[in-house]
Protein backbone atom coordinates (compact mmCIF):
# COMPACT_ATOMS: atom_id res chain seq x y z
CA UNK A 1 0.00 0.00 0.00
CA UNK A 2 1.42 3.42 -0.94
CA UNK A 3 2.22 5.95 1.79
CA UNK A 4 -0.51 8.33 0.60
CA UNK A 5 -3.10 5.57 0.56
CA UNK A 6 -2.05 4.48 4.05
CA UNK A 7 -2.38 8.08 5.19
CA UNK A 8 -5.85 8.31 3.61
CA UNK A 9 -6.98 5.11 5.33
CA UNK A 10 -5.60 6.27 8.66
CA UNK A 11 -7.21 9.72 8.33
CA UNK A 12 -10.58 8.20 7.43
CA UNK A 13 -10.33 5.90 10.45
CA UNK A 14 -9.55 8.88 12.68
CA UNK A 15 -12.58 10.81 11.41
CA UNK A 16 -14.94 7.89 11.84
CA UNK A 17 -13.48 6.54 15.07
CA UNK A 18 -15.43 5.95 18.25
CA UNK A 19 -18.89 7.33 18.85
CA UNK A 20 -18.52 10.23 16.42
CA UNK A 21 -19.74 8.17 13.45
CA UNK A 22 -22.80 6.89 15.33
CA UNK A 23 -23.73 10.41 16.47
CA UNK A 24 -23.36 11.93 13.00
CA UNK A 25 -25.26 9.09 11.31
CA UNK A 26 -28.15 9.40 13.75
CA UNK A 27 -28.23 13.20 13.43
CA UNK A 28 -28.36 12.92 9.63
CA UNK A 29 -30.55 9.84 9.23
CA UNK A 30 -33.31 10.82 11.67
CA UNK A 31 -34.40 14.08 9.99
CA UNK A 32 -34.23 12.39 6.57
CA UNK A 33 -35.81 9.02 7.24
CA UNK A 34 -38.46 9.88 9.86
CA UNK A 35 -40.38 12.44 7.70
CA UNK A 36 -40.16 9.97 4.82
CA UNK A 37 -41.77 7.27 6.99
CA UNK A 38 -44.68 9.58 7.83
CA UNK A 39 -44.96 10.88 4.26
CA UNK A 40 -45.15 7.35 2.86
CA UNK A 41 -48.49 6.85 4.66
CA UNK A 42 -49.92 10.26 3.72
CA UNK A 43 -51.51 11.51 0.52
CA UNK A 44 -48.52 13.36 -0.90
CA UNK A 45 -46.55 12.93 -4.10
CA UNK A 46 -43.37 11.10 -3.04
CA UNK A 47 -41.18 12.82 -5.64
CA UNK A 48 -42.36 16.30 -4.64
CA UNK A 49 -41.98 15.46 -0.95
CA UNK A 50 -38.46 14.07 -1.40
CA UNK A 51 -37.37 17.02 -3.53
CA UNK A 52 -38.69 19.53 -0.99
CA UNK A 53 -37.02 17.67 1.86
CA UNK A 54 -33.74 17.64 -0.05
CA UNK A 55 -33.88 21.33 -0.99
CA UNK A 56 -35.01 22.59 2.41
CA UNK A 57 -33.13 20.31 4.77
CA UNK A 58 -30.21 18.55 3.07
CA UNK A 59 -28.80 21.30 0.85
CA UNK A 60 -29.02 24.23 3.27
CA UNK A 61 -28.30 22.41 6.57
CA UNK A 62 -27.23 18.76 6.64
CA UNK A 63 -24.80 18.82 3.72
CA UNK A 64 -22.77 21.88 4.84
CA UNK A 65 -22.85 20.88 8.51
CA UNK A 66 -21.58 17.35 7.86
CA UNK A 67 -18.99 18.34 5.23
CA UNK A 68 -17.66 21.29 7.21
CA UNK A 69 -17.54 19.30 10.45
CA UNK A 70 -15.42 16.55 8.90
CA UNK A 71 -13.25 18.81 6.76
CA UNK A 72 -12.38 21.35 9.46
CA UNK A 73 -11.43 18.59 11.89
CA UNK A 74 -9.57 16.40 9.38
CA UNK A 75 -6.40 18.50 9.36
CA UNK A 76 -7.41 21.30 11.73
CA UNK A 77 -7.76 19.13 14.84
CA UNK A 78 -4.34 17.58 14.18
CA UNK A 79 -2.81 21.03 13.86
CA UNK A 80 -4.39 22.11 17.14
CA UNK A 81 -3.33 19.07 19.18
CA UNK A 82 0.09 18.82 17.51
CA UNK A 83 -0.34 15.27 16.18
CA UNK A 84 0.11 16.55 12.62
CA UNK A 85 3.89 16.34 13.16
CA UNK A 86 3.51 12.55 13.07
CA UNK A 87 2.45 12.95 9.44
CA UNK A 88 4.48 15.94 8.26
CA UNK A 89 7.82 14.57 9.50
CA UNK A 90 7.62 11.79 6.96
CA UNK A 91 8.88 11.46 3.37
CA UNK A 92 5.52 12.54 2.00
CA UNK A 93 5.15 15.92 0.24
CA UNK A 94 2.83 18.28 2.11
CA UNK A 95 0.40 18.55 -0.84
CA UNK A 96 -0.04 14.77 -0.63
CA UNK A 97 -0.72 14.99 3.12
CA UNK A 98 -3.31 17.68 2.47
CA UNK A 99 -4.82 15.65 -0.37
CA UNK A 100 -5.21 12.59 1.84
CA UNK A 101 -6.81 14.66 4.61
CA UNK A 102 -9.18 16.31 2.11
CA UNK A 103 -10.20 13.02 0.50
CA UNK A 104 -10.78 11.48 3.94
CA UNK A 105 -13.18 14.32 4.77
CA UNK A 106 -15.01 13.92 1.44
CA UNK A 107 -15.34 10.14 1.85
CA UNK A 108 -16.48 10.41 5.47
CA UNK A 109 -19.13 12.98 4.53
CA UNK A 110 -20.42 10.92 1.61
CA UNK A 111 -20.43 7.79 3.73
CA UNK A 112 -22.86 9.51 6.08
CA UNK A 113 -24.97 11.50 3.61
CA UNK A 114 -25.51 9.21 0.62
CA UNK A 115 -26.95 6.15 2.41
CA UNK A 116 -29.30 8.38 4.45
CA UNK A 117 -30.55 10.05 1.27
CA UNK A 118 -31.09 6.72 -0.48
CA UNK A 119 -32.96 5.26 2.49
CA UNK A 120 -35.12 8.40 2.86
CA UNK A 121 -35.95 8.36 -0.85
CA UNK A 122 -36.81 4.65 -0.93
CA UNK A 123 -39.00 4.88 2.18
CA UNK A 124 -40.90 7.93 0.89
CA UNK A 125 -41.44 6.40 -2.56
CA UNK A 126 -42.13 2.89 -1.21
CA UNK A 127 -39.75 1.60 -3.82
CA UNK A 128 -37.11 2.92 -6.16
CA UNK A 129 -39.31 5.87 -7.21
CA UNK A 130 -37.88 8.45 -9.60
CA UNK A 131 -34.37 7.40 -10.51
CA UNK A 132 -33.70 10.87 -11.99
CA UNK A 133 -34.55 12.45 -8.66
CA UNK A 134 -32.32 10.02 -6.79
CA UNK A 135 -29.46 10.52 -9.27
CA UNK A 136 -29.86 14.32 -9.08
CA UNK A 137 -29.77 14.32 -5.28
CA UNK A 138 -26.75 12.05 -5.10
CA UNK A 139 -24.82 14.00 -7.74
CA UNK A 140 -25.66 17.33 -6.12
CA UNK A 141 -24.55 15.92 -2.77
CA UNK A 142 -21.23 14.79 -4.25
CA UNK A 143 -20.62 18.20 -5.86
CA UNK A 144 -21.57 20.05 -2.67
CA UNK A 145 -19.44 17.79 -0.47
CA UNK A 146 -16.39 18.19 -2.69
CA UNK A 147 -16.69 22.00 -2.59
CA UNK A 148 -17.61 22.40 1.10
CA UNK A 149 -14.77 20.09 2.14
CA UNK A 150 -12.23 22.11 0.13
CA UNK A 151 -13.50 25.26 1.84
CA UNK A 152 -13.41 23.58 5.27
CA UNK A 153 -9.83 22.34 4.86
CA UNK A 154 -8.70 25.82 3.78
CA UNK A 155 -10.46 27.52 6.70
CA UNK A 156 -8.91 25.06 9.17
CA UNK A 157 -5.45 26.13 8.00
CA UNK A 158 -6.26 29.82 8.31
CA UNK A 159 -8.04 30.10 11.67
CA UNK A 160 -8.82 28.31 14.92
CA UNK A 161 -12.61 28.72 14.67
CA UNK A 162 -12.88 27.31 11.17
CA UNK A 163 -16.10 25.36 11.77
CA UNK A 164 -17.85 28.41 13.20
CA UNK A 165 -16.82 30.57 10.25
CA UNK A 166 -17.76 27.83 7.76
CA UNK A 167 -21.19 27.42 9.30
CA UNK A 168 -21.69 31.19 9.35
CA UNK A 169 -20.94 31.19 5.61
CA UNK A 170 -23.33 28.30 4.92
CA UNK A 171 -26.18 29.35 7.16
CA UNK A 172 -25.96 33.16 7.05
CA UNK A 173 -24.48 33.98 3.65
CA UNK A 174 -26.05 31.15 1.67
CA UNK A 175 -29.25 31.06 3.72
CA UNK A 176 -29.99 34.73 4.28
CA UNK A 177 -27.96 36.86 1.89
CA UNK A 178 -28.53 34.75 -1.22
CA UNK A 179 -32.28 34.61 -0.58
CA UNK A 180 -32.57 38.42 -0.63
CA UNK A 181 -29.89 38.99 -3.28
CA UNK A 182 -30.13 36.09 -5.76
CA UNK A 183 -27.14 37.37 -7.77
CA UNK A 184 -24.99 36.33 -4.79
CA UNK A 185 -25.68 32.70 -5.67
CA UNK A 186 -22.61 32.79 -7.90
CA UNK A 187 -20.68 32.89 -4.60
CA UNK A 188 -22.73 30.13 -3.02
CA UNK A 189 -21.84 26.43 -2.97
CA UNK A 190 -25.50 25.74 -2.28
CA UNK A 191 -26.30 27.62 -5.51
CA UNK A 192 -23.90 25.35 -7.44
CA UNK A 193 -25.45 22.18 -6.02
CA UNK A 194 -28.95 23.39 -6.91
CA UNK A 195 -27.74 24.12 -10.45
CA UNK A 196 -26.40 20.56 -10.78
CA UNK A 197 -29.63 19.14 -9.31
CA UNK A 198 -31.74 21.18 -11.73
CA UNK A 199 -29.72 19.95 -14.70
CA UNK A 200 -30.42 16.30 -13.84
CA UNK A 201 -34.08 16.87 -12.94
CA UNK A 202 -34.74 18.83 -16.12
CA UNK A 203 -34.01 15.71 -18.15
CA UNK A 204 -36.38 13.67 -15.95
CA UNK A 205 -39.34 16.01 -16.23
CA UNK A 206 -39.12 17.44 -12.69
CA UNK A 207 -38.82 21.20 -13.12
CA UNK A 208 -36.60 23.29 -10.82
CA UNK A 209 -35.83 26.97 -11.32
CA UNK A 210 -32.33 28.04 -10.39
CA UNK A 211 -30.32 31.13 -11.16
CA UNK A 212 -27.24 29.19 -12.27
CA UNK A 213 -27.36 26.95 -15.31
CA UNK A 214 -25.80 23.49 -15.22
CA UNK A 215 -22.58 24.54 -16.95
CA UNK A 216 -22.09 27.66 -14.82
CA UNK A 217 -22.87 25.72 -11.64
CA UNK A 218 -20.44 22.92 -12.47
CA UNK A 219 -17.66 25.26 -13.59
CA UNK A 220 -18.03 27.51 -10.53
CA UNK A 221 -18.07 24.52 -8.17
CA UNK A 222 -14.88 23.23 -9.79
CA UNK A 223 -13.21 26.65 -9.66
CA UNK A 224 -14.05 27.14 -5.96
CA UNK A 225 -12.84 23.64 -5.11
CA UNK A 226 -9.57 23.91 -7.01
CA UNK A 227 -8.90 27.46 -5.76
CA UNK A 228 -9.56 26.51 -2.14
CA UNK A 229 -7.31 23.45 -2.37
CA UNK A 230 -4.54 25.40 -4.10
CA UNK A 231 -4.64 28.07 -1.40
CA UNK A 232 -4.66 25.37 1.28
CA UNK A 233 -1.58 23.69 -0.24
CA UNK A 234 0.21 27.03 -0.42
CA UNK A 235 -0.68 27.79 3.19
CA UNK A 236 0.42 24.36 4.48
CA UNK A 237 3.74 24.59 2.65
CA UNK A 238 4.53 28.05 4.01
CA UNK A 239 3.19 27.88 7.54
CA UNK A 240 5.19 27.20 10.69
CA UNK A 241 3.91 24.13 12.47
CA UNK A 242 3.38 24.78 16.20
Amino acid sequence: MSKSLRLLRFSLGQLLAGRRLVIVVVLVALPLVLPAVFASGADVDPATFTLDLFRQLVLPVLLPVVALTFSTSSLGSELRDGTVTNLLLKPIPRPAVLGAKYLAAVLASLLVLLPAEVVGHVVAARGLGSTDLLAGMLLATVVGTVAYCALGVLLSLLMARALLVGLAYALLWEGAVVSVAPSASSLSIRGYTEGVLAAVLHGGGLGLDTRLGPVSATVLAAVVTVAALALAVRRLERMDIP
Partner: protein
Amino acid sequence: MSGPAADAPVVELRRFSKWYGDVVAVADLSFELLPGVTGLLGPNGAGKTTTLKAICGLLHPSQGEVLLFGRPIQHDPMLYRAIGVVPDGDRLYPRLTVRSYVRLHAELQGLADAGAAADRAIAEVDMGPLADRRLKGLSKGERQRTKVAGAIVHQPSLLVLDEPMTGMDPGQRARFIELVRLIGSAGVTVLVSSHILAEVERLASQILVLVSGRLAASGDYHAIRDLMADQPRTVMVKVDDARRLAAGLIALPSTVSVELDGDALRARTRSVESFATALPRLARDQGATLREVRTTDESLEQVFRYLVSRR
Protein backbone atom coordinates in the same frame (compact mmCIF):
# COMPACT_ATOMS: atom_id res chain seq x y z
CA MET B 1 15.68 10.50 -3.39
CA SER B 2 19.13 11.69 -4.32
CA GLY B 3 21.61 10.62 -1.67
CA PRO B 4 22.90 13.01 0.97
CA ALA B 5 26.02 14.92 -0.01
CA ALA B 6 28.91 12.75 1.22
CA ASP B 7 31.08 15.56 2.62
CA ALA B 8 28.29 17.78 3.96
CA PRO B 9 27.67 18.00 7.71
CA VAL B 10 24.57 16.11 8.79
CA VAL B 11 23.15 19.34 10.20
CA GLU B 12 24.38 22.84 9.46
CA LEU B 13 22.88 26.09 10.71
CA ARG B 14 24.19 29.24 9.03
CA ARG B 15 23.30 32.42 10.92
CA PHE B 16 19.85 31.03 11.63
CA SER B 17 17.41 33.48 13.23
CA LYS B 18 13.75 33.13 14.05
CA TRP B 19 11.49 35.87 15.29
CA TYR B 20 7.77 36.28 15.84
CA GLY B 21 6.81 39.92 15.40
CA ASP B 22 9.06 41.82 17.81
CA VAL B 23 10.02 38.74 19.79
CA VAL B 24 13.32 37.15 18.83
CA ALA B 25 13.30 33.43 19.63
CA VAL B 26 16.71 32.58 18.16
CA ALA B 27 19.35 35.00 16.87
CA ASP B 28 22.26 34.42 14.53
CA LEU B 29 22.83 30.78 15.40
CA SER B 30 25.54 28.88 13.54
CA PHE B 31 26.80 25.36 14.21
CA GLU B 32 27.42 22.03 12.55
CA LEU B 33 26.65 18.56 13.79
CA LEU B 34 28.59 15.43 12.99
CA PRO B 35 27.84 11.81 13.95
CA GLY B 36 27.62 11.09 17.67
CA VAL B 37 25.47 12.47 20.48
CA THR B 38 25.28 16.24 20.96
CA GLY B 39 23.37 17.81 23.82
CA LEU B 40 21.43 21.03 23.32
CA LEU B 41 21.37 22.61 26.75
CA GLY B 42 19.64 25.72 27.96
CA PRO B 43 17.06 27.04 30.40
CA ASN B 44 13.37 27.05 29.55
CA GLY B 45 12.64 29.61 26.85
CA ALA B 46 16.23 29.66 25.55
CA GLY B 47 15.21 28.71 22.01
CA LYS B 48 15.96 24.97 22.11
CA THR B 49 12.61 23.83 20.75
CA THR B 50 12.62 26.58 18.09
CA THR B 51 16.04 25.41 16.94
CA LEU B 52 15.01 21.76 16.87
CA LYS B 53 11.81 22.55 14.98
CA ALA B 54 13.78 24.51 12.39
CA ILE B 55 16.15 21.58 11.95
CA CYS B 56 13.14 19.29 11.44
CA GLY B 57 11.61 21.64 8.87
CA LEU B 58 8.60 22.54 10.99
CA LEU B 59 9.63 26.21 11.20
CA HIS B 60 10.91 28.39 8.40
CA PRO B 61 13.96 30.53 9.23
CA SER B 62 13.28 34.27 9.43
CA GLN B 63 16.89 34.69 8.35
CA GLY B 64 19.79 32.39 7.58
CA GLU B 65 19.81 28.77 6.49
CA VAL B 66 19.19 25.37 8.00
CA LEU B 67 20.73 22.57 5.94
CA LEU B 68 20.44 18.83 6.41
CA PHE B 69 22.97 16.75 4.50
CA GLY B 70 23.75 19.99 2.62
CA ARG B 71 20.17 20.70 1.55
CA PRO B 72 17.26 22.75 2.95
CA ILE B 73 14.64 20.28 4.15
CA GLN B 74 11.68 22.43 3.07
CA HIS B 75 12.57 21.69 -0.54
CA ASP B 76 13.12 17.99 -0.11
CA PRO B 77 10.64 15.99 2.01
CA MET B 78 12.40 12.76 1.02
CA LEU B 79 15.12 13.77 3.51
CA TYR B 80 12.69 12.60 6.20
CA ARG B 81 13.69 9.05 5.28
CA ALA B 82 16.94 9.79 7.10
CA ILE B 83 15.46 11.67 10.07
CA GLY B 84 13.72 10.54 13.22
CA VAL B 85 12.12 13.11 15.51
CA VAL B 86 10.74 13.03 19.05
CA PRO B 87 8.98 16.39 19.26
CA ASP B 88 8.02 18.25 22.41
CA GLY B 89 4.59 17.71 23.98
CA ASP B 90 2.40 14.64 23.81
CA ARG B 91 1.39 14.59 20.11
CA LEU B 92 0.03 11.03 20.19
CA TYR B 93 -3.19 9.50 18.94
CA PRO B 94 -4.85 8.30 22.18
CA ARG B 95 -7.01 5.61 20.55
CA LEU B 96 -4.09 3.81 18.93
CA THR B 97 -2.17 1.03 20.64
CA VAL B 98 1.59 1.28 21.03
CA ARG B 99 2.05 -1.25 18.23
CA SER B 100 -0.33 0.43 15.79
CA TYR B 101 1.22 3.86 16.47
CA VAL B 102 4.77 2.67 15.79
CA ARG B 103 3.59 0.63 12.80
CA LEU B 104 1.92 3.74 11.38
CA HIS B 105 5.31 5.49 11.51
CA ALA B 106 6.92 2.53 9.76
CA GLU B 107 4.27 2.46 7.03
CA LEU B 108 4.44 6.22 6.42
CA GLN B 109 8.20 5.81 6.07
CA GLY B 110 7.47 3.27 3.35
CA LEU B 111 9.21 0.34 5.07
CA ALA B 112 8.70 -3.00 3.34
CA ASP B 113 8.10 -5.02 6.53
CA ALA B 114 6.48 -2.41 8.75
CA GLY B 115 5.24 -4.92 11.32
CA ALA B 116 8.67 -6.40 11.99
CA ALA B 117 10.30 -2.96 12.11
CA ALA B 118 7.67 -1.78 14.60
CA ASP B 119 8.18 -4.81 16.85
CA ARG B 120 11.95 -4.28 16.80
CA ALA B 121 11.65 -0.59 17.72
CA ILE B 122 9.13 -1.34 20.48
CA ALA B 123 11.51 -3.91 21.95
CA GLU B 124 14.40 -1.42 21.84
CA VAL B 125 12.54 0.99 24.11
CA ASP B 126 11.33 -1.78 26.46
CA MET B 127 7.67 -1.36 25.52
CA GLY B 128 7.13 -4.96 24.39
CA PRO B 129 4.87 -5.96 27.32
CA LEU B 130 2.69 -2.89 26.69
CA ALA B 131 2.60 -3.14 22.88
CA ASP B 132 -1.13 -3.84 22.70
CA ARG B 133 -2.18 -1.20 25.24
CA ARG B 134 -3.91 1.97 24.06
CA LEU B 135 -1.79 5.11 24.32
CA LYS B 136 -4.39 6.97 26.38
CA GLY B 137 -3.90 4.52 29.25
CA LEU B 138 -0.13 4.86 29.48
CA SER B 139 1.99 6.92 31.85
CA LYS B 140 3.88 9.95 30.53
CA GLY B 141 7.17 8.04 30.56
CA GLU B 142 5.62 5.16 28.62
CA ARG B 143 4.20 7.54 26.05
CA GLN B 144 7.61 9.20 25.69
CA ARG B 145 9.21 5.81 25.01
CA THR B 146 6.51 5.07 22.43
CA LYS B 147 7.38 8.33 20.67
CA VAL B 148 11.03 7.30 20.65
CA ALA B 149 10.08 3.93 19.11
CA GLY B 150 8.20 5.79 16.36
CA ALA B 151 11.24 7.97 15.73
CA ILE B 152 13.76 5.12 15.43
CA VAL B 153 11.57 2.58 13.62
CA HIS B 154 13.19 3.37 10.25
CA GLN B 155 16.74 3.47 11.68
CA PRO B 156 17.44 7.13 10.80
CA SER B 157 20.90 8.62 10.40
CA LEU B 158 19.79 11.79 12.23
CA LEU B 159 17.78 11.56 15.45
CA VAL B 160 16.35 14.74 16.99
CA LEU B 161 15.00 14.43 20.53
CA ASP B 162 13.28 17.33 22.31
CA GLU B 163 13.32 16.80 26.10
CA PRO B 164 12.89 13.04 25.57
CA MET B 165 13.23 11.96 29.20
CA THR B 166 10.32 14.02 30.50
CA GLY B 167 8.17 11.80 32.71
CA MET B 168 10.52 8.81 32.75
CA ASP B 169 11.42 7.25 36.09
CA PRO B 170 15.11 6.80 37.05
CA GLY B 171 15.26 3.22 35.75
CA GLN B 172 13.69 4.18 32.43
CA ARG B 173 16.07 7.15 32.16
CA ALA B 174 19.09 4.94 32.69
CA ARG B 175 17.96 2.48 29.99
CA PHE B 176 17.05 5.33 27.65
CA ILE B 177 20.47 6.97 28.08
CA GLU B 178 22.08 3.62 27.34
CA LEU B 179 19.98 3.30 24.16
CA VAL B 180 20.81 6.82 22.94
CA ARG B 181 24.52 6.29 23.55
CA LEU B 182 24.34 3.00 21.67
CA ILE B 183 22.61 4.70 18.73
CA GLY B 184 25.21 7.49 18.77
CA SER B 185 28.12 5.05 18.87
CA ALA B 186 26.68 3.30 15.79
CA GLY B 187 27.36 6.44 13.73
CA VAL B 188 23.97 8.11 14.02
CA THR B 189 23.91 11.86 14.58
CA VAL B 190 21.81 12.46 17.69
CA LEU B 191 20.77 15.91 18.89
CA VAL B 192 19.04 15.84 22.25
CA SER B 193 17.75 18.86 24.13
CA SER B 194 17.41 19.26 27.86
CA HIS B 195 17.38 21.94 30.52
CA ILE B 196 18.87 19.54 33.05
CA LEU B 197 22.64 19.61 33.21
CA ALA B 198 23.05 16.19 34.82
CA GLU B 199 20.88 14.61 32.13
CA VAL B 200 23.02 15.96 29.30
CA GLU B 201 26.20 15.01 31.14
CA ARG B 202 25.26 11.34 30.95
CA LEU B 203 24.10 11.52 27.34
CA ALA B 204 26.52 13.62 25.36
CA SER B 205 30.19 14.47 25.18
CA GLN B 206 29.58 17.46 22.91
CA ILE B 207 27.15 20.17 23.92
CA LEU B 208 25.66 23.38 22.62
CA VAL B 209 24.48 25.85 25.24
CA LEU B 210 21.67 28.21 24.24
CA VAL B 211 20.74 31.21 26.36
CA SER B 212 18.12 33.77 25.34
CA GLY B 213 18.19 32.54 21.76
CA ARG B 214 21.95 32.81 21.37
CA LEU B 215 24.74 30.25 21.40
CA ALA B 216 26.46 30.80 24.75
CA ALA B 217 28.98 27.98 24.52
CA SER B 218 29.72 24.92 22.45
CA GLY B 219 32.20 22.07 22.46
CA ASP B 220 33.37 19.45 24.91
CA TYR B 221 31.02 18.97 27.84
CA HIS B 222 33.72 18.83 30.51
CA ALA B 223 35.41 22.07 29.38
CA ILE B 224 32.10 23.90 29.52
CA ARG B 225 31.21 22.32 32.80
CA ASP B 226 34.49 23.62 34.29
CA LEU B 227 33.44 27.12 33.26
CA MET B 228 30.06 26.57 34.88
CA ALA B 229 31.67 25.22 38.03
CA ASP B 230 33.08 28.69 38.79
CA GLN B 231 29.58 29.95 39.49
CA PRO B 232 27.59 29.21 42.66
CA ARG B 233 24.39 27.20 42.21
CA THR B 234 21.28 27.37 44.37
CA VAL B 235 19.94 24.22 45.99
CA MET B 236 16.51 24.20 47.62
CA VAL B 237 16.13 21.81 50.58
CA LYS B 238 12.86 21.01 52.35
CA VAL B 239 13.49 19.53 55.79
CA ASP B 240 11.63 19.13 59.08
CA ASP B 241 14.16 21.27 61.02
CA ALA B 242 15.55 23.79 58.53
CA ARG B 243 17.18 26.08 61.11
CA ARG B 244 19.37 23.34 62.64
CA LEU B 245 20.40 21.97 59.23
CA ALA B 246 21.23 25.48 58.00
CA ALA B 247 23.79 25.85 60.79
CA GLY B 248 25.52 22.67 59.63
CA LEU B 249 25.40 23.61 55.95
CA ILE B 250 26.94 27.06 56.42
CA ALA B 251 29.98 25.36 57.92
CA LEU B 252 30.71 23.49 54.67
CA PRO B 253 33.63 25.03 52.77
CA SER B 254 31.73 25.08 49.45
CA THR B 255 28.69 26.88 50.87
CA VAL B 256 28.41 30.57 49.93
CA SER B 257 25.21 31.42 51.80
CA VAL B 258 22.09 29.85 53.32
CA GLU B 259 18.64 31.48 53.49
CA LEU B 260 15.74 30.18 55.58
CA ASP B 261 12.28 30.16 54.03
CA GLY B 262 9.74 28.51 56.37
CA ASP B 263 10.36 24.76 56.37
CA ALA B 264 12.77 25.11 53.45
CA LEU B 265 16.20 26.57 52.99
CA ARG B 266 18.07 27.82 49.96
CA ALA B 267 21.78 27.17 49.96
CA ARG B 268 24.18 28.68 47.42
CA THR B 269 27.13 26.39 46.83
CA ARG B 270 30.21 26.40 44.65
CA SER B 271 30.05 22.62 44.31
CA VAL B 272 26.73 20.86 43.91
CA GLU B 273 28.54 17.50 44.07
CA SER B 274 30.21 18.07 47.45
CA PHE B 275 26.97 19.61 48.73
CA ALA B 276 25.04 16.53 47.60
CA THR B 277 27.58 14.27 49.34
CA ALA B 278 27.59 16.22 52.61
CA LEU B 279 23.85 16.89 52.89
CA PRO B 280 22.59 13.36 53.71
CA ARG B 281 25.40 12.88 56.24
CA LEU B 282 24.56 16.17 57.95
CA ALA B 283 20.87 15.35 58.01
CA ARG B 284 21.53 11.92 59.49
CA ASP B 285 23.87 13.31 62.17
CA GLN B 286 21.24 15.88 63.18
CA GLY B 287 18.31 13.45 63.00
CA ALA B 288 16.63 15.63 60.37
CA THR B 289 14.34 14.23 57.66
CA LEU B 290 14.94 15.51 54.12
CA ARG B 291 11.68 15.97 52.19
CA GLU B 292 12.91 17.49 48.94
CA VAL B 293 16.28 18.47 47.46
CA ARG B 294 16.63 20.12 44.06
CA THR B 295 18.70 22.65 42.18
CA THR B 296 16.50 25.46 40.96
CA ASP B 297 16.03 26.38 37.32
CA GLU B 298 16.69 30.01 38.14
CA SER B 299 20.15 29.17 39.39
CA LEU B 300 20.87 27.19 36.23
CA GLU B 301 19.79 30.19 34.21
CA GLN B 302 22.23 32.33 36.20
CA VAL B 303 24.98 29.92 35.26
CA PHE B 304 24.01 30.12 31.60
CA ARG B 305 23.94 33.90 31.76
CA TYR B 306 27.37 33.81 33.28
CA LEU B 307 28.56 31.84 30.24
CA VAL B 308 27.11 34.49 27.96
CA SER B 309 28.82 37.27 29.90
CA ARG B 310 32.19 35.51 29.49
CA ARG B 311 32.03 35.51 25.70
